[in-house]
C-alpha cells in the first residue's frame, strides 16, 4: 500500500537540482538584477538580429561628430546641419555649362538633400552614424560571437571530457596528451597563431578560433565529473538494462554534469567577448563593414585625440555593463548550482 495515499498526503516529490538552484538564485538580489541586465542585452541582440532595431545604423543621420544631446550642438558643425547650397558657378571654367547640365541631371535623380541632425542622444561618429544604434549593432556581433564560441568550446570540452573520463585508459591518455599540448601554448598566442594561419577575416572565423582554442578548461572539469559518475549505481543500472556507451554517457550521465557545463559557458562567454573585442580592435576579427565593439574602440581611439569621446564611452560602457552583469550572474549561478562551495 502506498504510504502517501494512506496518510492522505500529496505524494512527496523532492525538488530537483534545477528547481532548487532556481530558488536559491531567486533569493539572491544581485543575481536577479544582473540576470535582468543580461536579459535586456540579449533582447537587444534578438531585436537587432531580426532587423527591428538599429537596422539603419549605416544611414548618415547627423552631422559628422555630432555631440550627444546633453552637450548641445557644436557651433563649428552647425553650418553642416543645413542642406548645402550648390556651389556658385565658376565663370572661368570652360567646362561650366557641361558641369551644370550634369548637376541638373544628378539632382533630378537624387532625392532632395535631407537636413542632418545637429545632436543625437549619444552623439554621432565620423560619418554621422548614430552611436546608439551602432552600439546596439556592435553588441549584436560581439555577444553572438561570444555566445556561439562558448557553446562550441564547451561542446568540444564536454565531448572530449566525456570520452576521456568514461573510457579511461588509452583514450584518456590520448586526450590528456592533447590537453597538455594545447595548454603548453598560452591561449592568446594560440589565438594569434590560428588567426595568422587562417588569413581570412569573418565572424565565423573568430568563432572557430575562440571555440577551437577554448575547450581545455571545460574538458578538465567535465572529465573529472565523468570519472566520478561512471562508477555510480545508476550508471551500473543503465549498463544492466543494456544501454549503449553513448547512451550512458549522454542520456544518463550528462544531465547530472550539465550544471558544470552551464557554468563553464557563462564564464567563457565573458572571456570570449573580451577576446573578440581585442581581436577586432587589432584588425584580426570582424571584416570591414561589420561593426563590433572592438571595431568601435578602434575608431574611437583616433577620435579621442580630437576630443570626441562619446563613441569610446558608449562602446566601453555597454561592454563593461554587460560583462559585469554576466560575471556576477555566472558567480551566482555557480553558487546556486553547487551550494557546497560556499
Amino acid at each position, binding site marked *: 500500500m502506498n504510504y502517501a495515499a494512506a496518510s492522505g498526503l500529496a505524494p512527496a516529490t523532492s525538488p530537483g537540482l534545477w528547481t532548487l538552484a532556481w530558488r536559491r538564485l531567486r533569493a539572491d538580489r544581485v543575481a536577479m538584477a544582473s540576470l535582468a541586465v543580461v536579459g535586456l542585452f540579449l533582447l537587444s541582440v534578438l531585436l537587432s538580429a531580426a532587423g527591428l532595431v538599429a537596422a539603419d545604423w549605416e544611414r548618415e543621420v547627423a552631422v559628422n561628430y555630432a555631440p550627444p544631446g546633453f552637450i548641445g550642438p557644436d557651433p563649428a558643425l552647425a553650418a553642416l546641419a543645413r542642406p548645402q547650397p550648390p556651389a556658385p558657378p565658376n565663370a572661368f571654367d570652360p567646362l561650366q555649362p557641361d558641369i551644370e547640365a550634369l548637376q541638373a541631371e544628378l539632382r533630378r535623380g537624387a532625392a532632395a538633400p535631407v537636413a542632418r541632425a545637429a545632436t543625437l542622444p549619444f552623439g554621432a561618429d565620423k560619418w554621422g552614424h548614430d552611436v546608439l544604434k551602432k552600439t546596439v549593432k556592435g553588441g549584436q556581433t560581439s555577444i553572438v560571437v561570444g555566445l556561439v564560441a562558448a557553446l562550441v568550446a564547451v561542446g568540444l570540452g564536454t565531448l572530449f571530457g566525456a570520452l576521456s573520463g568514461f573510457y579511461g585508459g588509452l583514450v584518456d591518455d590520448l586526450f590528456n596528451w592533447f590537453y597538455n599540448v594545447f595548454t*603548453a*601554448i*598560452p591561449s592568446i598566442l594560440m589565438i594569434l*597563431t590560428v588567426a*595568422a594561419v587562417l588569413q581570412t577575416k569573418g565572424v565565423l572565423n573568430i568563432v572557430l578560433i575562440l571555440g577551437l582554442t577554448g575547450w581545455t578548461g571545460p574538458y578538465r572539469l567535465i572529465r573529472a565529473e565523468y570519472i566520478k559518475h561512471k562508477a555510480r549505481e545508476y550508471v551500473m543500472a543503465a549498463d544492466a538494462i543494456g544501454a549503449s556507451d553513448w547512451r550512458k554517457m549522454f542520456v544518463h550521465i550528462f544531465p547530472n554534469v550539465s550544471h558544470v557545463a552551464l557554468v563553464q559557458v557563462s564564464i567563457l562567454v565573458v572571456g570570449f567577448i*573580451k577576446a573578440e*573585442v581585442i581581436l577586432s580592435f587589432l584588425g584580426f576579427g570582424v571584416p570591414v563593414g561589420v561593426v563590433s565593439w572592438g571595431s568601435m574602440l578602434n575608431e574611437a581611439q583616433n577620435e579621442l585625440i580630437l576630443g570626441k569621446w562619446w563613441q569610446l564611452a558608449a562602446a*566601453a560602457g555597454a561592454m*563593461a555593463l554587460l560583462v559585469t552583469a554576466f*560575471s556576477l550572474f555566472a558567480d551566482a549561478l555557480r553558487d546556486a548550482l553547487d551550494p557546497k562551495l560556499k
Partner: protein
Amino acid sequence: MLPYLLRRLWQMLPTMAGVVVLVFVLFNWVGGDPSYLLAGKMADARAIANIRAQLGLDQPWFVQLAIFARQILTFDFGNAWSTGEPVAHIIASRLGPSLTVLVPLTVLETVLGIALALAIAFVRGSLTDRLVMVACTAGMSVSILVYIIVFQYGLAYKLGLFPVQGWGERFSENLLRYATLPILIGLAVSVAPTLRLFRSFVLDEVAQDYVRTARAKGLSERRIVWVHVLRNAAIPIITYVMANLPALLIGAFLLERFFGIPGIGREVILAVERSDFPVIKAVTVYVAMATMVFNLLADLLYQAVDPRVQLK
C-alpha cells in the same frame, strides 16, 4: 632530486613533440601555400617553383617536419619573410624590452596582490570585503583596451606626465621613463583578477585546523595571517605566477603596441599582420617550451616553500 628532474624532463618530450606537430600542421596544411604570398603580385610559375624549393615545400611531409625539427634544435629559423632579419636575432633583441616591462610588472603585481589578499582576508565577509570584490568585478569588466586608451590619452597626452610612446637606448631611461606608464596600466588591469584569485587561495587556508590551533595558543591574528597562512597559501600562488610568466611575455602585446615598445608581443602582432610565418612559428614553439620549463620550476619551488612536499 636528480632522478625526479630527469623523469620530468623525459615526460615533457611527448608534449613538446605534440606542440611541434601542431604548429607544423597549422602552418603547412591549414595555412595554405606561402610561396604565393612570398612571390608577390607578379608571380610566375618559375618564381613560385623556386621559392617552394627554397622553403622545402616540394619535399614530402616527413622531410619538411625534419627540417622544422632541425630549425627548432639549432635555433635557426632563417630570416623573417617581411624584413629579412634573422629570426633568432629578432627574438634575442626583442626579449630585453619585453622583460624591462614584465619583470617589474610581475613583481609589483604579485606583492600587491598578496598584501591586499591577506588584508582583505582579515576582514572577510565584512562590507569592506564585499565592496572590494564588487569593485574587482567591475574593474575586470572594462576592456584592457579602454584602460590603455584612456590612460595614454589622459596621463600622457593631456597631462604630459609620461611620454606618449617611445623607447630609448639606455636601460635606466627605458625603465624609468618609457616603461613607467605601461607598468602602471598593466598593474591597474591585473591587480583585480590577481586579488580575487589570491583571496580565494587565502580563504581556503583560514578554515584549516592549524589556524584554529594557532589562535588557540594565543597568537595574534596578524601573525597568523602573515606568517602561517601566507606560507601555506604560497603554493597555489607560486603555481599561478610561474605558469603565467611565459604567457605574460605575449600577453603584454597590447601595451607594447600602444607604447611603441619593441618587445616580443609587438613582434608577434606585426608578424600576424604581415603573415610572417617563421617568426610566429619560432615564438610559439619557444614560448611553449618556456611554459613547460616554468611549470617544472614551480614544482621545484614547492619544496623550498613547503618541506612536507616530497619530489619523487
